[in-house]
């Protein structure tokens, strides 16, 4: 009943309105009711997203248009006519025009419902979890702000605005991580997250500038006669891409965009901030650091897939980063004792999977990546919320060594956590299996013609095994074994209130059915996005689905093997695992994994200390050298004065003598000079 353009505006507007209302009124009036406007707004925008999804899905792309897209311009952000980029490719001097334009195409329509649905569930969950916290209203204001920024990030149609909401989402995560600002670790973690994101944005900004200089515009869509970077005209004949950006620029733009994506989605070089982000409240971790914000990087790479297609080396780099991060995160997650840290590293690992899929460079790979993103959002949010309810029960203690056998105390959390773990491990009926299968299939197809993709395939399988192992380990250590409860909790360890259990159940159901229902339909829907529909990406024959029995078999075997070994070690009396740990500690491998491969320390030594040293040095220079020079200039007149002071001896005859000498000098010059 709503017209498409008004839908597109309403989806981000509702959470913003709610955030402003709670922000202004929350402190004095709403207090404990400040969740009401936010939850309603999120639910509303979720319904609108579904309506938009239905509206876009039944639009048929006409012949000459590549894919389906609807753009709606709100107002002009900045317009500098003829800002002038003088490159041979661009004939007229383009003007620097940035308008606030929203777009709706299958890719956005897939992301919007996912984000809003999970956000609503998390908001409901947080009613229970954050109950009684003095900053209750502040939490919901930030959540509203975050969902607004995320929905805008996904539906904006200009690189500059993508950068804008890229950083806006970063700020919301800064505010939410540092929610309990009295805790110094939380404040430091918030700052760390923001700075690492900023480093990522450093690369992203340069990508932007290169695009502006090469294309003469930053718009995705075509605005008037200006051809958008991913506009219809360019996508119609992708050969012109090769003409516009050639050689090193073709490699530079995708890599720089990848740096931005790494910063946001916590990939290998810039992954250090995500585990520390666990300092924030758990609903935040569930919403932001599992389901929505971290996926922004994957969304952006998919959106710009035509740019990535230009240079195979770029795709390889993306794949390698993805594969390596997956493996690395998997290894670290093995020895983590903090349940949330385990889940954090599993998120980094699964994101690595998605980038690996995108890196294969085939349409099937991209679709697999997006599908894995879609399913991962659900079961990872479920796992985080499960961990949250454990913390809620265990008086905020999440160290797995302090408790075990909680299945008796929290049956519902245990059941839903089990479903989530199995989904993550990739057991057959559940969501994880189908999406991981598609990813492995894509990598397998690419591995046919040899080259590095073969090793990536093997590392992917190994990571699958590791994922299964550490998920099962986490589940067994928490819920299996004798009931041990940390002394602070005393005797009142309890199941979480219904407000927290309901989202768990809903997410569990989704984790079960999402995989099967959307296995093929999601792919067919996404392919109609303009950037994916163009021949450069889709190739001649588009997307065909065929189920790889062999890969499905391998992944299931590997998953079951992982769970079995975990069961062997962690069920029962754990003698073997303790022995194995001691061996590993002997050979220092255990420390390596537990201390997160010392990346934090490396970065501290490589970047933080040198810069602080340089800062101290430059302050010294400023105080002594630069200021010294200025004072020197100030000192010269005084020095000259000090010398000249001595002629004023006070004796009259000295003065008379000096006067006569001056006169003699004058007369001497006029005799010698003979001028005039």
């Amino acid at each position, binding site marked *: 009943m709503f017209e498409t353009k008004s839908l597109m505006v309403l989806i981000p507007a509702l959470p913003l309105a709610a955030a402003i209302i709670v922000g202004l009124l929350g402190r004095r009036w709403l207090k404990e009711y400040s969740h009401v406007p936010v939850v309603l707004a999120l639910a509303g925008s979720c319904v609108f997203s579904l309506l938009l999804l239905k509206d876009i899905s039944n639009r048929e792309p006409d012949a000459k248009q590549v894919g389906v897209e609807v753009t709606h311009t709100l107002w002009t952000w900045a317009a500098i006519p003829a800002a002038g980029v003088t490159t041979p490719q661009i004939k007229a001097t383009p003007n620097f025009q940035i308008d606030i334009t929203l777009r709706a195409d299958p890719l956005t329509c897939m992301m919007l419902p996912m984000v809003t649905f999970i956000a609503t569930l998390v908001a409901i969950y947080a009613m229970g979890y954050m109950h009684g916290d003095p900053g209750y209203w502040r939490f919901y204001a930030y959540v509203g702000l975050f969902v607004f920024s995320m929905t805008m990030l996904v539906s904006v149609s200009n690189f500059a605005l993508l950068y804008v909401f890229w950083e806006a989402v970063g700020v919301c995560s800064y505010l939410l991580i540092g929610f309990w600002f009295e805790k110094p670790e939380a404040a430091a973690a918030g700052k760390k997250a923001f700075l690492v994101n900023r480093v990522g944005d450093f690369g992203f900004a340069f990508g932007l500038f290169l695009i502006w200089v090469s294309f003469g515009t930053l718009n995705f869509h075509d605005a008037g006669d200006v051809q958008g970077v991913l506009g219809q005209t360019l996508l119609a004949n992708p050969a012109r891409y090769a003409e516009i950006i050639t050689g090193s620029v073709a490699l530079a733009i995708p890599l720089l965009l990848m740096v931005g994506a790494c910063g946001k989605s916590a990939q290998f070089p810039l992954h250090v901030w995500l585990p520390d982000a666990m300092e924030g409240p758990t609903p935040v971790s569930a919403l932001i650091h599992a389901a929505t914000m971290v996926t922004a990087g994957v969304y952006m790479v998919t959106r710009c897939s035509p740019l990535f297609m230009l240079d195979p080396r770029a795709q390889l780099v993306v794949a390698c980063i993805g594969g390596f991060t997956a493996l690395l995160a998997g290894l670290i997650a093995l020895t983590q004792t903090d349940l949330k840290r385990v889940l954090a590293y599993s998120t980094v690992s699964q994101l690595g999977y998605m980038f690996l899929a995108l890196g294969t460079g085939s349409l099937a790979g991209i679709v697999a990546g997006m599908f894995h993103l879609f399913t991962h959002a659900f079961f990872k949010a479920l796992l985080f919320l499960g961990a949250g309810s454990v913390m809620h029960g265990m008086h905020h203690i999440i160290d797995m060594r302090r408790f075990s056998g909680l299945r008796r105390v929290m049956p519902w959390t245990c059941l839903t956590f089990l479903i989530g773990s199995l989904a993550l491990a990739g057991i057959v009926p559940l969501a994880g299996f189908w999406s991981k299968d598609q990813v492995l299939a894509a990598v397998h197809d690419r591995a046919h013609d040899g080259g590095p993709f073969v090793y990536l395939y093997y590392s992917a399988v190994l990571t699958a095994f590791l994922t299964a192992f550490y998920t099962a380990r986490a589940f067994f250590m928490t819920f299996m074994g004798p009931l041990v409860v940390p002394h602070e909790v005393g005797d009142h360890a309890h199941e979480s209130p219904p407000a927290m259990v309901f989202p768990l159940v809903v997410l569990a159901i989704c984790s079960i059915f999402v995989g099967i229902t959307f296995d093929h339909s999601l792919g067919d829907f996404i392919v109609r996005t303009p950037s994916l529909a163009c021949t450069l990406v889709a190739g001649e024959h588009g997307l065909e689905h065929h189920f790889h029995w062999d890969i499905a078999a391998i992944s299931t075997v590997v998953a079951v093997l992982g769970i079995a070994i975990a069961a062997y070690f962690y069920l029962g009396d754990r003698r073997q695992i303790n022995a194995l740990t001691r061996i590993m500690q002997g050979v220092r491998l255990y420390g390596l994994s537990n201390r997160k491969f010392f990346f934090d320390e490396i970065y501290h030594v490589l970047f933080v200390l040198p810069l602080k040293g340089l800062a101290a040095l430059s302050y010294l220079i400023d105080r002594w050298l630069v200021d010294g020079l200025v004072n020197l200039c100030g000192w010269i007149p005084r020095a000259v004065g000090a010398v000249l*002071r*001595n002629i*004023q*001896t*006070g*004796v*009259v*005859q000295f003065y*008379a*003598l000096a006067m006569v000498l001056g006169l003699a000098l004058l007369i001497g010059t006029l005799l010698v000079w003979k001028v005039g």
Partner: protein
Amino acid sequence: MLEVQLLYNYLVIGALLFGIGLVGLLSRRNMLIMFLAAEMMLQGVSLSLVAFGRFHNDWGGTTLVILILTVAACEAAILLALVQCLFHRTGNLDIAVWHDLRDANQPKFIDQEVPGDDAAKPEWPTLTPAGIEPEVDADEALEHRIHV
């Protein structure tokens, strides 16, 4: 041609007078003598003026000379009053006494004793008979030279 030659003679003498006056003003330390030297400079000027007047057959020069004389008389009057007051304060006519007004960091002007004629006969140290108070030479007390 005689005229110009005659003029040059006068001018030379005038210049000499001026020079001597100037040197006198610089070297002597007695205020009265300094003033006299200044007057001598003016005399030199007057002589030159009269010579030029004579040469140009114009009375301008001589009128100027008369003006100079009157002004010199005024200055003489003022000087005498001034010197009388200064003598009243310091007891001698030495210009070098007046050097209190000087730049902050300048040392006091010490009047180096010019080695007088008595340097010829050195005073050997003589043993004074015990018990007699050595008599103090009056001149030693004054830190300035008596005959200025």
